[in-house]
């Protein structure tokens, strides 16, 4: 924290308090432990550098979720510009299956990550915010800067997709 927050000491404490959930959100977004931790670090750096943009009275954790999600989108777009043009959904489906040994290997977590990575990024971030992080529809809409109706449709699509993926795999998620 440098010069800028309305109350930099208090904000720093709130950022630290939000780190466990931010780490979970980042790992869920990326589908990968190390990538998720890198995203968390970038998010904290951005938050510290732009503390002056934080609106006093709003939630620090929701603000950091928004930063993390935007950074993740930027990374996906950058990857698309650098490499062959592939669909974001395909990136989501292949991430975690790229041969790296560091993919979350605990069985339940690996199964959950596979299910999450089966849905497009916009649906995944919405699902994570509401179902995993417990944000209300309105809070999720503010984080993702979309209308409430979009949150509802994304959640329904994510759940339908996850259910279909689970249904195709023997034994379901577990």
């Amino acid at each position: 924290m440098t010069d800028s927050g309305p109350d930099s000491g208090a904000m720093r404490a709130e950022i630290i308090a939000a780190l466990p959930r931010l780490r979970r959100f980042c790992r869920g977004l990326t589908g990968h432990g190390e990538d998720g931790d890198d995203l968390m670090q970038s998010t904290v750096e951005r938050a510290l550098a732009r503390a002056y943009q934080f609106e006093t009275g709003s939630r620090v954790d929701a603000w950091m979720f928004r930063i993390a999600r935007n950074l993740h989108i930027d990374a996906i777009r950058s990857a698309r510009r650098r490499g062959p043009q592939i669909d974001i959904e395909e990136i989501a489906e292949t991430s975690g299956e790229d041969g790296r040994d560091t993919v979350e290997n605990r069985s339940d977590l690996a199964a959950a990550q596979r299910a999450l990575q089966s849905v497009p990024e916009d649906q995944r971030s919405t699902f994570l915010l509401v179902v995993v992080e417990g944000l209300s529809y309105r809070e999720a809409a503010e984080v993702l800067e979309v209308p409430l109706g979009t949150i509802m449709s994304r959640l329904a699509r994510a759940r339908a997709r996850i259910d279909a993926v689970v249904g195709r795999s023997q034994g379901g998620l577990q």
Partner: protein
Amino acid sequence: MSDIEERLSAWLDGAMTPQEAAAFEAELERDPALAARAASWRANDSFISGALAPLAQEPIGDDLLARLGLAEPEALPSAANDNPPWWRQRWLPVGGALAAGLALVLVMVQRPADTAQDGGLSFALESTPALQQARLADGRTLVPQFTARAADGRWCREYRVDDHAGIACRDAKGWKVEAEAKDLGPVADGDIQLAGGGTAAEIDAANARLKTADPLDSVAERALIAQQWGDR
């Protein structure tokens, strides 16, 4: 996406009004396929959130906080009883990047300004914890050194701005600079001290005049900042 699926999703999230939920639950009773889908979606939600739950329970260690730039700043120790007054020891080693290359050769003492309102100095003193950096309007960097209470009840802060050090105290009208020492030069080993005897005479004199108590620790100082210095 069908309306029924959006409604099912909203029902699972408790995002319906009581009337909407009651109507939907009546549909569930009439439609076994819908009820089965609801059970399946709920089970998927529960499994995924349960599988990810441990990720938010992993400890956040000091190493991680340091990597993230969130480590607690090193607090300056208080003076022991058999030591010289704390304000004669203020140029204690603080280590790290903060100390590296800091120029501290006392050449002259600047006449104190009437107030510290200019250039963001007041805001920086008001809101920046000790050993954190604050950028002033003219681009210079201010680093509060510590906070201590004067005998008259005012809170005072020693600070460093690029090439000079100062002490300012806060009353109901804001921050007032009590003394400044200018043109400070580097010292060896990364420690911070003043050349020519290791003390800044004007700031020592100000501390003596103000009868400042021992510095606050970092926790107390942050609490004071959070309270907007209201503990007077």
